């Protein structure tokens, strides 16, 4: 039975779904990277994802328009980001607490809306697979990388884009400066508040997309609490990825591949005890935690509110 795992079709299946399952992690964690780079730790990602996920599903369910659903999710995420930005930037709130507050708010609100607007679990047609011409015809490779839906491609395109913005643009320089030494940035005329508003709202928008990718592109249902901790994992992935988009990509893939392997083990009924299979992603978290111990330094001003000395 173990040999079933090694057959070519199954391997391709595991890899293809691994690539697909990394999508929500990528959007959420890249968004969080921007926030943390600018010194803001947003623990509310999970809540933003949940509300985004519901918004996308509900709008798509009602209008049949996937893009409209996606747009609503982005808007909802951005609004939550705006609120988070106001609370952290203007009110100097403790970021750990406000983040948990936004998480529980998103959790409760999405359940409440789900109960009062829908009440039962429905399914929809999510984003269809887009076969990239020629590339998708390559045996194996084509199915793994080039026969995914639009949101999956978007997630992977985001990685180099985020790297470029953070490292090669003036905006990126400002973000990093604000995260490392807000006083210095401020004295050079960079608006700490404006930069942080930008990164937190961007993070919220991307978390909204992350949620939408679950409800209208990967699973195509909405269920209460369906993000099941992925938002928190995304926050941890930023840490694991040492605040670099490429590192985040590596972490996201590691998690999604292990998850995909575990799902396939269950599907194929391989006699590895299912409790061990279910444990795998969690055990991975410990290893990740231990492996990253003191390997990298966080942005100096992470989670510290900025107050100008008058």
């Amino acid at each position, binding site marked *: 039975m173990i040999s079933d795992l090694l057959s070519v079709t199954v391997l391709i299946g595991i890899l293809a779904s691994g690539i697909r399952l990394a999508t929500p992690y990528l959007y959420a964690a890249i968004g969080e990277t921007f926030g943390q780079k600018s010194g803001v*730790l947003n*623990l509310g990602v999970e809540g933003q994802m949940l509300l985004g996920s519901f918004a996308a599903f509900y709008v798509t369910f009602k209008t049949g328009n996937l893009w409209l659903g996606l747009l609503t999710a982005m808007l909802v995420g951005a609004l939550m980001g705006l*609120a988070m930005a106001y*609370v952290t930037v*203007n*009110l*100097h*709130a*403790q970021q*750990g*607490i*406000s983040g*948990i*507050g*936004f*998480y*529980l*708010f998103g*959790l*409760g*609100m999405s*359940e*409440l809306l*789900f*109960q*009062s607007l829908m*009440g039962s679990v429905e399914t929809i047609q999510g984003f269809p697979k887009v076969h990239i011409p020629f590339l998708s015809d390559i045996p194996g490779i084509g199915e793994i990388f080039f026969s995914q839906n639009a949101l999956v491609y978007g997630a992977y395109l985001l990685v180099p884009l985020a790297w470029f913005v953070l490292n090669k643009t003036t905006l990126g320089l400002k973000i990093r400066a604000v995260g490392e030494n807000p006083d210095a940035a401020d004295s050079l005329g960079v608006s700490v508040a404006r930069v942080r508003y930008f990164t937190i709202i961007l993070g919220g928008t991307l978390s909204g997309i992350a949620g939408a990718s679950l409800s209208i592109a990967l699973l195509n249902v909405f269920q*209460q609490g369906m993000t099941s*901790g992925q938002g*928190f*994992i995304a*926050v*941890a992935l930023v*840490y694991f990825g040492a605040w670099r988009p490429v590192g985040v990509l590596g972490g996201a893939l590691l998690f999604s591949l292990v998850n995909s392997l575990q799902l396939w083990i269950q599907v194929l009924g391989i006699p590895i*005890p*299912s*409790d*061990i299979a*279910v*444990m795998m*992603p*969690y*055990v991975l*978290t*410990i290893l*990740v*935690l231990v492996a*990253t*111990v*003191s390997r990298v330094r*966080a942005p100096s001003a*992470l*989670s510290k509110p900025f107050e100008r000395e008058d």
Partner: protein
Amino acid sequence: MKKNVWVNIGFQAGALVLALLITTLILAAAGAPPLKAYGSILNGAFGSSNNIVAVLITWAPLLLTTVGVLITFSAGLWNIGVEGQMTLGAIFATWMLRMLQDTNLPPALIIILGILWGMVGGALWASLAGALKTFGGVNEIFGGLGLNFVSTALTIYLVFGPWKRPGVGSMSGTQPFNEALWLPTLGTGLSPWGLGLSILAVILVYLLLRGTYFGLRLKAVGKNMKASYLLGIPTWQYSMFAFLLCGALAGLAGAIQVESVYHRLLPNISNGYGFLGLLVAMLINYQAIWVIPIALFFAALNVGSVQLQIVYKMDSSFAGVLQDLLVLLVLLGQGVRERFLGKA
């Protein structure tokens, strides 16, 4: 000084009114007549002795997790890992009970050992987060998050693996313990011991933070680590000790859940009490004395809103929405106050 306190209370009350206003709008939008809905929450929380008991059962662990994080907050630490520490308390208590349930030891002794072992478990888990921070340079928020996941995994592993019920393991948890090993309860599951210990913990933490040399130094470490170090306070030992104490209290909460409420180990036994404790701690502005009423208020909301589900088919998550709005608005109020009245 006196005036400041009243301004403070005024702002918290203003936040409460505003939160109620917003939730009223939400209720109206969702099609439930708001006044009647509030009535049914009140009724659900205090309408019968059974409901009051349910509120008190929810109150006890919330008291413990809240005062636990008050200690770590005082030391300037963000102990996001309370959920995991509570879970480990539950696991360790279950472990002790399973080990001793077939021996001839008196049940009372086994119960007490279970509680103590649960506290050890919580403290151990907290010390991991503390060690990661102190010796590994891992921010306690990330460490706590990771350890929370691991504790969930550990529970699932135990419930489906080594400790599974005869036959097939299920999400409904391990095999319930023999009734002799249940903490004695009044009526429908309220354990006076559990509640008593929780209230005792609140008093002790209040005194510790308020009236002892230790508490003062702990707060000094929290306010300014560098200055405290230069003054000769052993800073990392104090941080570590704050983690241990908080973990022990969270572990006690977990052990109480196992021994008096569920009588077995369940997946997700921490049930968000850790996160809720963080919110309550923030809401009371880290003043231990307010834990008692605010935690009771939160417990009543949680229990009372179950009634909403029954009467209006609205989800009981309504309580969560109200609580979080409250927290966010209090944060807002604090910011507004700082802007117009200067720092408190």
